[in-house]
């Protein structure tokens, strides 16, 4: 089993590990994700119907209204939040929500995570050290 190490930048402190859920398209937490269930409800979204709960959620950037921060916090209060978030570039709405919900978050990875990490892979995030370890499910 190959382990790949990815370096990046800490947005919200903490460590987490779990299964990756990867979206190549942006996610809006206000209106796009049900904060009671963690399920992505945006029509036509590539992850529509999947739950972000307890996942290492990897997506390029957040989108939509500033109300999204409170929705991420609500997910955390409902125990339906991702265990960690990795973005290509953090936007303030997601960053603020992750801090509020104490969800470890990183951005600016040195390599393209979409090339390396697939949905279902096992991923460890250490935001404090700025390190992501990924183990491919298939190899």
């Amino acid at each position: 089993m190959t382990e790949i190490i990815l370096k990046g930048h800490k947005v919200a402190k903490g460590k987490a590990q779990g299964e990756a859920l990867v979206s190549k398209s942006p996610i809006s937490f206000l209106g796009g994700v049900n904060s009671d269930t963690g399920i992505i409800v945006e029509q036509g979204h590539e992850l529509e119907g999947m739950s972000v709960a307890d996942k290492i959620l990897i997506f390029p950037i957040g989108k939509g209204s500033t109300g999204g921060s409170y929705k991420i916090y609500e997910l955390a209060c409902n125990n339906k939040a991702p265990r960690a978030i990795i973005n290509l570039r953090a936007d303030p709405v997601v960053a603020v929500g992750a801090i509020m919900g104490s969800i470890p978050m990183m951005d600016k990875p040195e390599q393209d995570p979409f090339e390396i990490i697939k949905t279902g892979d096992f991923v460890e995030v250490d935001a404090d050290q700025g390190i992501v370890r990924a183990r491919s499910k298939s190899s």
Partner: protein
Amino acid sequence: MRFTKKEEEMLDGKYGAAVQKSIELLVAVGECYSAERFVEVGSAHLSCANPVSAGKGGTRFIKEMAEKGGKFAVPTTTNPASLDPWTWREMGFSERLYREQLSVSNAIAEMGGFVCNTCTPYLIGHVPRVRENISWSESSAVIYANSVLGSRTNREGAPSALAAGLTGRTPAYGYHLAENRHGKLKIIVNGTLLKGATDYATLGYFGGKIAQDRVPIFTGIPQSVSLHELKYLGAALATSGTVGLFHVVGVTPEAPTEGIASGHKKIGSSDTFEFTLKELKETEESISKIGPEEIDLVILGCPHASIEQIKEYIEVLSERRVKDKVEIWILVSNMIKKYAENIGYAKRIESTGAKLVSDTCPSPMPGGFFKSRGYRAVATDSPKMAYYASTTQDVPCHYGSLDKFVDVVTKRI
């Protein structure tokens, strides 16, 4: 980001868990915008200070900050509530909503906040100085503070304004930096067309669509423009666009001349626009979705009305009586309502059948409240109200100044 000793101590938790969480949140925002440092803020203004806009998550976060012992480091005021806390029962709101609102307001008061429930804190004594850094949410208050008062704030979201209130800090980026405050496009206005706040709002709605998130410079607006006309201009700019700052040459503090307003950069012809009778008519028609005949509720005062606006409404409504099956609300802060009571304006409003409704607006009211009360069509003199009443309460809106549709909603006595 670089931190001062005190900011390091905040991050280390020396000032408690609420301050620590707040400054962590502000660091994250700062890093998203590549800020190099914090600036100290003189005040904060909080949107979503109600259970509907904050939702379960926001309500819980506000209470958690209070439980963790958070105290505001700077004067901090609050945006409208989900109901009028003085007349909620007769207006048909539930006791449950009243209790929920009270619990949010109490948490903010416990942290030392000034619970004033208004989008116009600047009308009731919360008036930041020229060049003072502040952290305000509520787009219409942000644009007023930046443009009319010359203070400096970004368009904050509710959590970042709360965090700034608790720490007295905000990251130095955007409108806090002088170089980002220059105008990028010019709108040449035929000022003689503008007859009252609603026309200024129509101009703002036109300008916001063009400017999007850029800073517009207006020329041709007369020096006699009133503060509430500038308030309506700004609120509309922030409704159709994400404009956070505008300049009016010869009027607003950062625009003594066009050159100073633009930072002495030439604005090309592709960024120069005209506002004439044609644009005024077309924009007004585009905002108004229905005719005035169908109206059962008139909502005036968005942003919350000033005492001068109440006087103007009294003049239009004098010797008239609101028709049966129609209601007229004039939205105000409670302090302006008390002022109106003290100088006899409230009685004059009441004698026409119209109402001063304080501390609230349709946007933070529960969705579906209008329909449950039988309000099916609204008329308003503000494009911001037309937008939010139709999106949050799902009712169509007529748009125009009160004097133009007063015959439809009142009868002479």
